């Protein structure tokens, strides 16, 4: 009887060239990113049992999770570090793909999908950062959403759509929560599934032509993946244990902190905004960078 093919078997063929599985070629960055996303979903679901997306209770519910729920600090810490790690690993994965020329045909579509995923990851990180609703997020939220107003014609409408009204309020938390746990997360989950499906569909991981017919089996591939996942899990737990994420008192937006501070992955946008107007520096340059990456595959 023929064995029924599954998504797992599609990702793990009976054998793959040993060169594709070489750690020092890919550093396992794609697999690590998928694992981190799974960790984020798992810990995020646990956090949803306690998080209340309302003006009065958003910050207090994060405090409850952190200080009063058994091992709540650990769940939040792992979620936080997996999110930071995902941004770093996604960027490193992109660099690896560029440096090894893996963006070229026949993998061009997967490259475009990967760029979209990077944007989604950053948006997920930003919406998650805002959900803490403490004093640290005030500037980032105000600057980030006010950037939308600088877009001609549709700016105000877009701002209203994102913040849920004419100014930041309790509705903003509900909007960000909805996008974070469902809208963006669902799109990202589908896109990740498609992305890893296309890896095999496009002929596996791009490598220089194999000099030897040396191959490894599915079991060996899975074993390597398990080792990598266990190591990553240990790193995440260690980071959550030694460097717990910060949490300030509830943000009130009546008295903003003296200095504006963006989350670390938007520090470069914050610096750009100091040099010029909101539209070119805060929106056109970042969007331009994404467009440049998108056309890279076609140009080279």
């Amino acid at each position: 009887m023929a064995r029924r093919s599954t998504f797992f078997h599609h990702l793990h063929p009976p054998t793959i060239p040993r060169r594709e599985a070489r750690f020092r070629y890919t550093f396992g960055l794609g697999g690590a990113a998928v694992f981190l996303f799974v960790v984020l979903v798992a810990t995020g679901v646990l956090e949803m049992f306690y998080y209340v997306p309302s003006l009065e209770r958003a910050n207090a519910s994060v405090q409850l999770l952190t200080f009063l729920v058994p091992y709540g600090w650990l769940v939040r810490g792992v979620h936080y570090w997996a999110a930071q790690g995902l941004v770093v690993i996604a960027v490193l994965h992109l660099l690896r793909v560029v440096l090894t020329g893996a963006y070229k045909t026949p993998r061009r579509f997967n490259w475009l999908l990967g760029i979209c995923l990077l944007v989604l990851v950053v948006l997920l990180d930003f919406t998650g950062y805002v959900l803490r609703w403490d004093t640290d997020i005030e500037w980032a939220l105000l600057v980030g959403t006010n950037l939308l107003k600088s877009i001609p014609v549709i700016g105000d409408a877009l701002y209203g759509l994102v913040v849920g009204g004419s100014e930041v309020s309790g509705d903003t938390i509900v909007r960000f929560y909805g996008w974070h746990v469902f809208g963006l997360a669902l799109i990202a989950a589908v896109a990740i599934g498609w992305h890893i499906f296309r890896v095999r569909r496009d002929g596996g991981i791009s490598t220089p032509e194999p000099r030897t017919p040396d191959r490894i089996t599915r079991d060996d591939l899975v074993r390597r993946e398990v080792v990598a996942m266990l190591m990553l899990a240990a790193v995440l737990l260690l980071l959550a244990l030694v460097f717990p994420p910060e949490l300030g008192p509830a943000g009130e937006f009546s008295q903003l902190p003296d200095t504006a501070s963006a989350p670390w992955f938007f520090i470069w946008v914050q610096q750009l905004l100091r040099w010029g107007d909101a539209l070119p520096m805060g929106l056109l340059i970042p969007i331009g960078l994404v467009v440049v990456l998108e056309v890279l595959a076609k140009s080279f």
Partner: protein
Amino acid sequence: MNRKSLGWIILIGLGGLLLASDLLPSTAAPAAQPTIAATATPAGTTVPDLILTLTYNRLDKPRVSNPPTQADKGAVYYWLVCIPCHGDKGQGLTEEWREVFGPEEKNCWQAECHGKRHPDEGFELPHAVPPVLGLTALGRFNNADELHRLIATSMPWYRPSYMNAEESWQVTAFLLRQQGVMPPQVALNEGNAPIFRLRTPAPSLEEERPLTAAVIGLLVVAVLGVVWHYRRRTM
């Protein structure tokens, strides 16, 4: 995977185990909590003074961390203002506590400082001053918000307006910490006060951290086990 890579993995694994074992004893020990009646030894004391002060003194100023936390400041405020009526251990105005005042002062009501016919500088004190710490204390409050409201509006008994807003949060934070319902690192405020329930003990980080470290150690051992098994099979 060559021998060099395996060596690195073993080295990292051992490091992880060492780290895990290092965290176990240090975090398993209960963290030093400032107490109301801690033994203090002022700098510059002579040896006979030192012997005297090493005995347990219930009226000593509490020792606090540097910089002091919100609850630490509350401990000092409690020592300054609340201790005469509510006791050094938050036990309330018990007979045992009044003995500490000395023979002339121990009967607050007969001495008339706190009786019905008190002088102008005195005030009338109820005969039963409730405990504020311990198993039976603060049972009428559901959460920190309710407790804070009473402290902010009714305490100290003799002059409710004496305490400012910041001090009322400090004292509330101190009581919650001592009751074990709020972790020491938390700063209490209007936003988070409703979440701290007075009959729900806060989980102890000192118990949870070592278990987490042990899980990390186990994961490292599991990685080493899989790698060792793989190496043994392919050699």
